[in-house]
């Protein structure tokens, strides 16, 4: 069974979704990612969905869940590269994904992640 690879880059984890997400794959990703965050003590997760062209309400909720889960495990999650069509669909579905940080591309996402983590360090508290 195929699964979505989770790459480790220092203290960050990078997830690139390059296939059509189906429900089973999303559930598996949720499992794998939570384990990986704990195993590598990751401080940030970057999810790139720039090649994702279709979403349904389930996948939308999954993305929100993964982000919330990451936060609980102490890793900031940033969602990057959402396509206009996907954004419009999510809004029409009423899934505004509150609390999920977003960025336009991987580069910006990395910068945002770094800023967030620096913020935690400086204040000594979760931002």
């Amino acid at each position, binding site marked *: 069974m195929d699964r979505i690879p989770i790459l480790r880059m220092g203290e960050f984890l990078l997830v690139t979704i390059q296939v059509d997400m189906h429900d089973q794959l999303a559930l598996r990703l949720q499992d794998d990612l939570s384990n990986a965050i704990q195993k590598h003590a990751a401080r940030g997760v970057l999810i790139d969905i720039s090649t994702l062209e279709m979403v349904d309400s389930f996948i939308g909720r999954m993305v929100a869940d993964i982000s919330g889960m990451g936060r609980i495990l102490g890793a900031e999650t940033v*969602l*990057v*590269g*959402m*396509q*206009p069509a*996907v*954004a*419009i669909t*999510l*809004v*029409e579905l009423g899934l*505004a*994904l509150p609390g999920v940080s*977003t*960025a*336009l*591309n991987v580069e*910006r*996402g990395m910068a945002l992640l770094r800023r967030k983590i620096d913020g935690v360090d400086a204040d000594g508290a979760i931002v």
Partner: protein
Amino acid sequence: MAEGMISNVLKKSGKEVQAAWARDLAAALPTGKGRISAIELEQQTGEFLKLLTTAAEHNKGADIAASDFKPLREFLEGVSRSRAVQRFTSAETATFIFSFKRPLFEQLKLAAGKDAEKLADETWQATVLLDSLGLHTVQTFQKAREEVINRQQREMLELSTPVVKLWEGILALPMIGTLDSSRTQVVMESLLQKVVDTGAQIAILDITGVPTVDTLVAQHLLKTVTALRLMGAECIISGVRPQIAQTIVHLGVDLQGVTTKANLADALALALKRTGSTLKS
């Protein structure tokens, strides 16, 4: 009756019919407006007569949907389309066919001689045929006009939503006119696409030109803001007039989490600050 009387008459005295028809047409439609020349009209009447003769020769019925009438139908479609483009009215376009009746009936009368019954039959048949041809012409004319209207509507939609780049990483969308669902959809799509293309961080939605904001418009604006946020860009709404601010509060629309500014200048200043650029004055 081996052949239809119409085709016989047309074959025998086509020239006279055409001349009489041209006179009737000239009387009915003043060509002085320069929209269509006498030569062009003569070409069209000649072509019509030729096609009608051929069609009537093969098919004595009045069912213009038959394959024998196909060339004639196509010719008439071409004529009415060009009439629509030349801004003729539908009545003027229909007159092209209907003014053909009198010359044709006159020739039929001559050909029938004293046989009143035959004349009545033939006249009736010719009337039915010409009526359906006339209706077909008007129908095509209307379709052509509708196409023009649809195209203009589409063009207006595109024209009314220009996304402009104000600064590196800052886009602005000055919205003008009433916002309805289809327009907002176009606005949203073009703005989001532009954000992807330019990699902008901040988009300013300027609603100075929007006359009224009701709950529906506010909802559309919020959707656009949310979609932009999902894509990782920020959105500032500018140009909120005092009356609109009052309306929004009275309607109980929640604009929490949306940055709003009174004018575009303030919004640009804020956007510059957020992107880390500075302007020296």
